[in-house]
């Protein structure tokens, strides 16, 4: 049989329909589609895909299991290295990781590894209730296990907790918000990662003994020292890069101007999109400007569109080529009618008499010499100011480490920018305290943080034995 050089495309909600709802955009593979796609994997010997995976999933093996229609086996293989496949199958930038190294990709499309991972994970979530004891799921926690605290319940914390629990440790995850999940619940929108999926994955961790304590502010209610005082023998800090950046330009604190974090938290965690049912308000702007070109900017823009904005603009200071967003995310945004204004950057905002933003002044940019990131840096074009009407602005220009723990923990060594310093074993400057994810690296991806959480779990286990 001739091999198909083209990926089996995942079915998606039509752009015209999906901007009127909050349901997931990609609909997932059927069993037949998954099997067809799995047949595209040539099961090459050198398995370059695994090297591209931050959590080293045995990719060809699980794909082979799908080809054999043994989905239970496929998910067991995935679970050996990844506690949250329904999440990573959706939000990993596979095109820069496993898939860009795929051998099949040299003569055609790479195998759609992410889609297959999602397929197996979704099958598992659907079938878990009827077959709860599926193979490789972590076993019962030994009561004698040592106690480990995980601070932060985002991707780094969850994967660290999962691995530690699997090794027999008694794990407590502390979360400041009222719901666990970190950026998976406050940041990534419903249409990209349904919250029911996040909940199922967290329920699974709970079912094998991970204890979640929400509403606890570590650094204030309990210090790192207090945690040790409570019998924990190691601590993992995975508090992420949550402090939003602003541009510090005039008018930025006008009403109707949000950080992307605030806008997305209101909509995702506080469910402001369900007006009338939930109490937290969010602005429904008509002309919404989103500043930035990353995945968070795309999430914010598509969210604003679903809140009935007439026009949503992405304002980005470089060109589309330099945009840090995944191609899939910017494609989805364009399909949904988001208007891209590139080579432009705001210089000031203007408000009405009640303090609400009504317009913004931008400057045109041109590309100059490459900067430290290797991308050509934007240079303002003199006298190129132009004014845009806007009644809502979402600033999505990155974030920096959350400072609560570092400000309240003496002896925790930090980099100048506030990142926690760790060695190659994820050890911080304090004995028994480990850290990983965005709090160490600065803002990165879900799966990178998960990879760090896993490796830290291994180091913690070595430390405790």
């Amino acid at each position, binding site marked *: 049989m001739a091999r198909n050089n083209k990926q089996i495309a995942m079915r998606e909600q039509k752009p015209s329909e999906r901007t009127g709802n909050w349901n997931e955009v990609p609909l997932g593979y059927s069993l037949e589609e998954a099997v067809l796609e799995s047949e595209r994997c040539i099961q090459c010997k050198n398995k370059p895909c695994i090297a591209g995976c931050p959590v080293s999933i045995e990719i060809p093996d699980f794909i082979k299991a799908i080809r054999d229609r043994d989905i239970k086996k496929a998910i067991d293989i995935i679970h050996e290295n990844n506690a949250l496949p329904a999440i990573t199958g959706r939000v990993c930038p596979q095109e820069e990781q496993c898939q860009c190294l795929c051998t099949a990709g040299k003569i055609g499309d790479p195998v759609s590894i992410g889609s297959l991972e999602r397929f197996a994970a979704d099958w598992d979530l659907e079938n878990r209730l009827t077959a709860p004891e599926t193979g490789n799921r972590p076993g019962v926690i030994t009561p004698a296990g040592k106690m480990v605290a995980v601070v932060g319940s985002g991707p780094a914390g969850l994967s660290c907790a999962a691995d530690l629990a699997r090794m027999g440790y008694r794990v407590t995850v502390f979360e*400041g*918000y*009222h719901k666990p999940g970190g950026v998976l619940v*406050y940041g990534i929108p419903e249409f990209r990662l349904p919250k029911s999926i996040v909940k199922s994955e967290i329920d699974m961790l709970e079912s094998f003994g991970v204890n979640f304590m*929400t*509403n*606890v*502010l570590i650094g*204030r*209610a*309990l210090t790192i020292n207090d945690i040790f005082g409570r019998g924990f023998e190691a601590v993992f800090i995975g508090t992420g890069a*949550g*402090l*939003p950046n*602003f541009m*510090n330009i005039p008018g*930025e*604190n*006008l*009403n*109707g101007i*949000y*950080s992307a*974090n*605030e806008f997305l*938290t*209101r909509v995702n965690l*506080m*469910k402001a999109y369900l007006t*009338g*049912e*939930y*109490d*937290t*308000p969010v602005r429904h702007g008509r002309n919404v400007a989103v500043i930035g070109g990353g995945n968070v900017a795309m999430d914010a823009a598509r969210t604003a569109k679903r809140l009935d904005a007439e026009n949503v603009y992405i304002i980005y200071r470089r060109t589309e080529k330099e945009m840090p967003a995944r191609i899939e995310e910017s494609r989805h945004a364009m399909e949904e009618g988001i208007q891209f204004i590139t080579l432009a950057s705001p210089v000031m905002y203007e408000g009405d008499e*009640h*303090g609400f933003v009504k317009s913004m002044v931008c400057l045109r940019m041109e590309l100059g010499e490459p900067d430290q990131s290797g991308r050509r840096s934007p240079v303002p074009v003199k006298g190129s100011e132009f004014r845009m009407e806007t009644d809502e602005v979402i600033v999505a220009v990155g974030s920096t480490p*959350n*400072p*609560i723990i570092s400000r309240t923990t003496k002896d925790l060594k930090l980099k100048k920018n506030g990142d926690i310093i760790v060695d190659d074993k994820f050890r911080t400057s304090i004995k028994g305290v480990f850290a990983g994810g965005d709090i160490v690296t600065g803002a990165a991806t879900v799966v990178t943080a998960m990879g760090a959480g896993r490796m830290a779990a291994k180091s913690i286990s070595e430390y405790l034995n």
Partner: protein
Amino acid sequence: MFKIKEIYTLAPGTLHAIIEAPLIAGKAEAGQFIIIRTSSKGERIPLTIADYDRAQGTISIVFQVLGKSTTQLAALKPGGVIPDLLGPQGNPSEMGNFGNVAVVGGGVGIAAAYPIVKSLKNAGSRIISINGFRSRDNMFWMDKMEKFSDSLLISTNDGSCGRKGFVTDVLRELLDNKGEERIDRVIAIGPAIMMKSVADLTRNYNLKTIVSLNSLMVCGMGMCGACRVTVGGKTNFTCMDGPDFDGHLVDFKELMMRLDSYKHEEKTCLEKWNRECAGGPQ
């Protein structure tokens, strides 16, 4: 879940709740606050910790019934629970012997001023409390205030108790009454407009003035920036950098406009709830 130990009315529309929250009670300091959510679909709202009892593991909040969340909170009975409560947040107020300190409190803000008065007094400062209310009926906690104040001055808008007028009238008289009692520092806690008026007044006297801001918040832990405020021309986060700031540097106009961001939405939300739930089963 956080259990209500006691809850009762202090003055019309003003309630005091004592809540079991041992972790927070163990660490709370004057000037810090909590974030609560009164239902699984509710907003996260910040409230100042008005008192704490480390031994009992309880914290106190004093709140005015204004919107849906505080209406729901007021309907709770002893033994009832608040589903979500986070704290203690914000930096503790600066403590020490600062000489003669005028602590100016307005309305429900007096509950927030109380732990500061208490701690400052214990740290050796001499306390002149200036407390303003709309009317005699709105007064509360004057006994507690008196206990830790070297002098307690009261103003009411209608003159039903103390001096008729505003806290700023009392403060101005105190400042102009030169020679008798030099004021070394002013701390103001209350409605934004009151704190602005105090700061505007003391600016003329070049007198250090600390204000404790009541910005809108969502996360309360440095993640969203809803609480940002311009201080000395720079953007600060009230939850991380405050809530206490130099009153002479705060952009109060911006603060007050931001406090009104969701006035309309808050009103609609409360009206809807009152229509659907008032008197009905909860």
